[in-house]
């Protein structure tokens, strides 16, 4: 990211990075604590018949609780910002495509924002 006349370190830029890092960190905690169980149940245990599927009515009753909606919103949004940060640096460092850095940034955080808006919309309308 250095070696460019526009990339002079400034305080706004530094504080933006700190904020994005905070989102990354919070998303990392949320992903670590919440995702394994839910992915195990919905991705493996229920489809393979290891455990009985919860009924549509049961899931809808859960989704109507404001606490569950808040839980699901946090579980969708923060991990996406975690992904955005990590994936961005994986692409920066792993592929060494410096000329595409702005595109990568827009793709990652644009994706995270889009996912957040979709989650809010779906949870609002459910």
């Amino acid at each position, binding site marked *: 990211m250095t070696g460019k006349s526009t990339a002079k370190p400034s305080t706004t830029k530094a504080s933006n990075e700190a904020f994005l890092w905070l989102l990354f960190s919070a998303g990392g905690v949320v992903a670590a604590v919440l*995702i394994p169980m839910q992915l195990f149940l919905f991705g*493996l245990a229920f*489809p393979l018949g290891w455990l009985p599927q919860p009924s549509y009515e049961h*899931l809808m009753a859960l989704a109507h609780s404001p606490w569950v909606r808040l839980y699901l919103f946090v*579980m969708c949004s923060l991990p996406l910002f975690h992904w955005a940060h990590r994936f961005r640096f994986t692409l920066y460092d792993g592929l060494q495509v410096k000329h595409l850095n702005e595109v990568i940034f827009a793709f990652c955080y644009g994706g995270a924002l889009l996912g957040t808006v979709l989650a809010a919309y779906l949870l609002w309308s459910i």
Partner: protein
Amino acid sequence: MTDQTVIDQAVRSEFHPRWYRERVSTWWWLGEWHYLKFILRELTSISVAWFVVLTLFQLRALLHGPEAYARFSGRLQSPFMIALNAIAFCFVMFHTITWFNLAPRAMPVRMGGKRVPEFLVAAPNYLLWIAVSAFVGWLLLRTP
């Protein structure tokens, strides 16, 4: 002169020399286990994003009614989706374990002048994880 001024001047000058950078192979991380582990850890983020996308589709199916949800559940039973989710689950577990074990490194706890062993600092993370997972499992599996 500080290093920063040197860099600033270099950037401002019109004819500054090109930095000498040795070309690193794109596959540099395959050489050593530590590097590979680092890259695998970075790639766990793809599984995290995949899970969120799956959840968004699930919410959409729920919103569209029982038939749509039955179709969604049916699709999750295809061998391809099972395989994909099994891989994603392994990566997510790798994220959880590496993330929890990082906490004592990022924030060393000292007690009575001695450093508390790392597994004791990481332990509360695992306890919280087990408690939350048990609660979520109970919410989904209990018969109302």
